[in-house]
């Protein structure tokens, strides 16, 4: 696929606007409050769209397409079960404490509610994981751009070796994000995230439209792929009768409760967007507005995967004949379908699964569909959408990192009393450092094959128990700092031990689990992940309660505004229906139930 001048024009326009927003935002980034919290002056709808956009990184767009191709519409559980209920919960119940406490970050809330050590544990692990995550995402994007061969032409024309495409992609994306956050801070990031949100939709919605036309609409997909692909709840009674390899309990408790609430209700990357809102009501509506949009995101990120697999696996399908043949050496070399066969990078041979069948490279489902159906002009729009999703995800991580680093690490342990301007400078330097560290992490991923899996595993161990800490902290005034800290540690250790004792079926003991001896086998890796989360959360929950009961709680006077029972309730909700958080929450949950019923 060669890019035309129009495509370059679209990408250039995007870059100019993104940088421009950063530069204009810089005029208002004069204090710590401006830089880290966007002056707490952003309207709810802007925060809500930024909230989604920061979570719609390239890894998600590519990964959800891949899952759609592999597991079908069941992937939507990650949204309908794994996001919406938690987003409603944080908006209705938790936001009053985050926003009302005037904490500047999630770890800072933990210090106010518990103690210094709980904050330190949360701040340090969050900062590290956010940077590593951003590095992993950067690596994935650069690798993808290299695989798509879209920039081969310009690099060859400049006499640069093809390997430089990887470096070019990483450094360009990092430099752009650096400029707009360094200058505009959180405000620059949020405004750009809204712009990027619309661009992501503009890039993927027409892809779905064209794809559905090609496969004969949703009905065509149903006929081609069968019910296991097009019904989200089919066979969920047992782990062995559905594609995910999870039963309904593991799904709703592991994903729907522990993992989902752990991420959406405690992760500062998410919470920070709502904290930038211009009022308590706007902060509460932020995740609710986001939920209203989020529930429809599966239709633009998961459906491309289903369409791609339909075009790959159905050689007799009428749509297939009209797909132009791909010239050798272009996008796909080994497979005439949209999703190519996975090639082992060391041997150059196709990778085979346990049954000796060639494996498909599902990660290329969405990108290849895009290159297949978009002509010159729209390819630019599609690539811009991919670039926008990458940048919004990365900026989300970087703005959360610079705030946590400055307030929860630097101000807490390195220099306590300094003028605001000093912390503003530290925040800018932390942005620079955070992006440099992400780039380093991306290169680490490219050096060591397994490091990506390993990092994600460690993150899972650390993240799984954290919601128990916030939940008990906000809703049980007896919870103590010692309880929270020891509970968190116990949860992480339980996660590691559970991983060490279990293994997904067909996997070798090692990075996939079983390194302490296999006592239980799961039907899939996903089932193992969900159950690790359930165990870790339960351990944290029980240990926190047990230790709290034998340690001394904070005096009640210090907990006003931080704990549910000691905070004055918001009794009356004013304004029209769309301004009332509880009503909005009910509407979002009802719509989600309806979506589940339609795609059951």
């Amino acid at each position: 696929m060669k890019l035309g001048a129009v495509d370059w024009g679209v990408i250039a326009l995007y870059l100019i606007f993104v940088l421009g927003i950063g530069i204009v935002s810089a005029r208002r980034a004069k204090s710590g409050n401006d830089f880290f919290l966007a002056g707490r002056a952003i309207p709810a709808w802007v925060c809500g769209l930024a909230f989604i956009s920061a979570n719609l990184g390239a890894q998600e767009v590519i990964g959800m397409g891949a899952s759609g191709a592999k597991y079908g519409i069941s992937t939507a559980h990650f949204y309908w079960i794994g996001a919406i209920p938690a987003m409603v919960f944080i908006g209705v119940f938790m936001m009053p404490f985050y926003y009302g406490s005037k904490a500047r970050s999630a770890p800072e809330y933990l210090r106010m509610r518990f103690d210094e050590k709980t904050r330190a544990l949360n701040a340090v692990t969050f900062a590290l994981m956010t940077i590593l995550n951003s590095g992993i995402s950067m690596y994935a994007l650069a690798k993808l751009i290299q695989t798509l061969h879209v920039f081969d032409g310009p690099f060859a024309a400049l006499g640069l070796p093809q390997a430089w495409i990887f470096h070019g992609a990483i450094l360009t994306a990092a430099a752009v994000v650096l400029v707009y956050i360094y200058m505009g801070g959180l405000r620059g990031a949020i405004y750009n995230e809204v712009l990027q949100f619309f661009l992501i939709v503009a890039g993927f919605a027409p892809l779905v439209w064209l794809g559905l036309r090609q496969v004969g609409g949703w009905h065509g997909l149903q006929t081609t792929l069968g019910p296991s692909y097009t019904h989200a709840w089919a066979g969920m009674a047992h782990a062995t009768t559905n594609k995910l390899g999870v039963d309904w309990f593991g799904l709703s408790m592991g994903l729907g409760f522990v993992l989902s609430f752990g991420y959406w209700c405690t992760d500062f990357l998410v919470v920070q967007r709502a904290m930038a809102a211009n009022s308590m009501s706007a902060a509460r509506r932020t995740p609710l507005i986001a939920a209203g949009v989020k529930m429809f995101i599966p239709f633009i990120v998961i459906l491309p995967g289903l369409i791609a697999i339909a075009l790959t696996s159905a050689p007799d399908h009428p749509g297939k004949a009209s797909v132009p043949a791909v010239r050798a050496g272009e996008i796909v070399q080994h497979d005439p379908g949209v999703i190519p066969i996975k090639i082992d990078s060391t041997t150059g041979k196709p990778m085979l699964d346990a049954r000796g069948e060639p494996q498909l490279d599902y990660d290329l489902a969405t990108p290849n569909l895009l290159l297949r159906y978009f002509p010159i002009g729209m390819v630019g729009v599609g690539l811009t959408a991919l670039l926008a999703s990458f940048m919004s995800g990365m900026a989300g991580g970087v703005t959360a990192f610079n705030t946590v680093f400055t307030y929860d690490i630097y101000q807490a342990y390195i220099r306590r009393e300094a003028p605001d301007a000093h912390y503003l400078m530290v925040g800018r330097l932390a942005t620079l450092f955070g992006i440099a560290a992400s780039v380093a992490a991306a290169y680490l991923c490219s050096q060591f094959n397994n490091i990506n899996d390993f990092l994600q595993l460690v993150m899972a161990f650390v993240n799984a128990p954290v919601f128990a800490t916030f939940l008990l902290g906000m809703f049980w005034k007896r919870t103590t700092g010692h309880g929270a800290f020891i509970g968190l540690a116990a949860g992480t250790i339980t996660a590691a031990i559970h991983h060490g004792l279990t293994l997904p079926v067909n996997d070798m003991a090692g990075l996939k689990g079983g390194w302490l001896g296999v006592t239980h086998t799961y039907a899939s890796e996903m089932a193992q992940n969900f159950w690790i989360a359930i165990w870790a959360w339960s351990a944290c929950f029980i240990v926190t309660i047990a230790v709290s009961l034998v340690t001394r709680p904070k005096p009640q006077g210090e907990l006003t505004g931080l704990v549910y029972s000691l905070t004055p309730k918001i009794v009356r909700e004013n304004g029209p229906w769309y301004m009332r958080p509880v009503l909005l929450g009910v509407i979002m949950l009802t719509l989600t139930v309806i979506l589940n019923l339609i795609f059951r």
Partner: protein
Amino acid sequence: MLFDVRLPIGLLFLAIGLLVGGYGVLGPATLSAGVNIDLIWGGVMAAFGALMLVLAALAKRGRLDPPPEDQT
């Protein structure tokens, strides 16, 4: 708010829409799945951009966006 974010969104979508839509009219006609997607989607993007600009203009005249309220 420092500036209305609908302004840059409107301008960018209008510009991209006109560019891609224009290419769909003037460039070599390429059909994907039987439609001139450059023209159609370029048009949709330009229209969306124009709508954003109109909304931004209305907001500037105070006809949209109720003032932020605080209930606590």
